[in-house]
């Protein structure tokens, strides 16, 4: 089993959402990873514990961040939301009160995990923090302290796979700063993938091969989204030393490309940064 650690350095993307909320941990639901399944041998530590953290009270008209923090027992992993050869990513279903709205989940960059049989997954070990913005309606009174249910599902795997789920209550107490929660959320924001400046990466197609160039890279890797085109050999070609990456695509139901996913750059100082990329297929020509 080969594992490439995903060390990701600071990224500016997501910082625009950083809200000066002051407080509080709302929910600390503790959930077993087995979800009642008999898959996990008796006596073993639970694969997954989950808690939901909020950095501040819900304020009328403004978003509030919820952090879904999964803590994993040793050797277990959860799945990224992009393309994997197995598993499925955690999901959150909210039963929001009238007038509330919820944004999408924000995912940190995963690690590449290659298993026997050329099985390539993108996963998280130890801890996964997903951020989500929620917005109460105008007129919302933070003093209400009301909560609402959320159902979270996941699949945790190591040698075996164990589905888990729980329903917990997300609550927003009216006051009380919680620097620990704010710290967790701020750290999670820093790890989120960013967006490259215009013109980067430099890219072109030769036939069905995409050439990527990102200067000042010691190493590059591409993690495809689920709606990305099909790669010929994601394991061998999905990462390379240096500042260039060549990805061969093959037709998927008759279409080659696009290339959508994360481009992960290891800089000269060894730090990693991940960036969202979305490039059209060869039918559109090169820029």
């Amino acid at each position: 089993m080969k594992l490439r650690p995903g060390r990701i350095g600071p990224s500016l993307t997501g910082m625009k959402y950083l809200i000066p909320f002051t407080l509080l941990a709302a929910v600390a639901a503790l959930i077993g990873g087995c979800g009642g399944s008999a898959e996990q041998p008796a006596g073993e530590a639970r694969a997954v514990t989950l808690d939901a953290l909020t950095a501040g009270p819900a304020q009328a008209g403004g978003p509030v961040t919820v952090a879904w923090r999964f803590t994993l027992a040793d050797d277990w992993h959860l799945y990224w939301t992009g393309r994997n050869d197995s598993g499925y990513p955690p999901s959150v279903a909210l039963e929001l009160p009238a007038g509330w709205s919820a944004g999408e989940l924000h995912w940190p960059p995963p690690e590449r995990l290659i298993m026997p049989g050329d099985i390539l997954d993108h996963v998280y070990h130890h801890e996964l923090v997903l951020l989500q913005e929620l917005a109460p309606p105008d007129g919302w009174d933070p003093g209400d302290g009301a909560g609402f249910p959320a159902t979270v599902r996941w699949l945790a795997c190591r040698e075996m796979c164990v589905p888990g789920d729980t329903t917990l209550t997300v609550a927003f107490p009216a006051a009380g700063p919680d620097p620990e929660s704010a710290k967790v959320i701020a750290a999670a924001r820093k790890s989120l993938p960013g967006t490259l400046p215009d013109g980067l990466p430099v890219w072109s197609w030769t036939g069905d091969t995409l050439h990527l160039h990102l200067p000042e890279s010691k190493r590059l890797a591409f993690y495809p989204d689920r709606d990305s085109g099909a790669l010929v050999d994601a394991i061998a070609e999905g990462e390379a030393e240096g500042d260039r990456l060549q990805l061969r695509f093959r037709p998927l139901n008759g279409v080659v490309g696009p290339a959508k996913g994360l481009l992960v750059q290891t800089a000269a100082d060894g730090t990693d940064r991940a960036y969202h990329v979305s490039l059209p297929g060869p039918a559109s020509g090169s820029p």
Partner: protein
Amino acid sequence: MRHRNASIILLVLLLAGTALAGVVPGDKAPDFTLTDTAGETHTLSAYLAEGKTVVLEWFNPDCPFIKKHHQDHRTMDETAAAYKDQGVVWLAINSGAEGKQGAGLERNKKAFKDFKMSFPVLLDPDGTVGRAYGAKKTPHMFIVTREGAVAYMGAIDDDAGVQAPGKTNHVVAALDEILGGKPVTVSETESYGCSVKYAD
């Protein structure tokens, strides 16, 4: 002569690399002979010679996604039964290595009985057949036409969770087109499930 030998070695390596990468729709399906949990042997080319269309389902009885389709719901057996009289043979293949989750003769014998399966479970403990096809998940579905070509590969349906079966059964859609003499509209989907537990 030395150059020629080197070329031959390179060609063999390239071919080996191709085989390891698995198949894609349109490829010739790799032939195989495997033994099921009852000791019967099954050879793909023999089924094709009889004019059969063959559905391959990668299988692990302890995978939650297999339980969803074999235990909690009857997706696989019901689909297999619906096409049995139309010349479709359905084979489950377990490419898990001895000692891995869901692998081994006894475990699969028990699963065959517990799941009340109407089609055989073939054992591929060294993973040769699984790797030749590029099977990565359980379930991972492949349809081989009577002519021996891979016509579909991917998921059984469009619900990647472990609870409910999907609304669209991709294998049904592909089989209907194949048996109707039409090209398969969706020849590849992203499969979902557990990883195949190959030998390390």
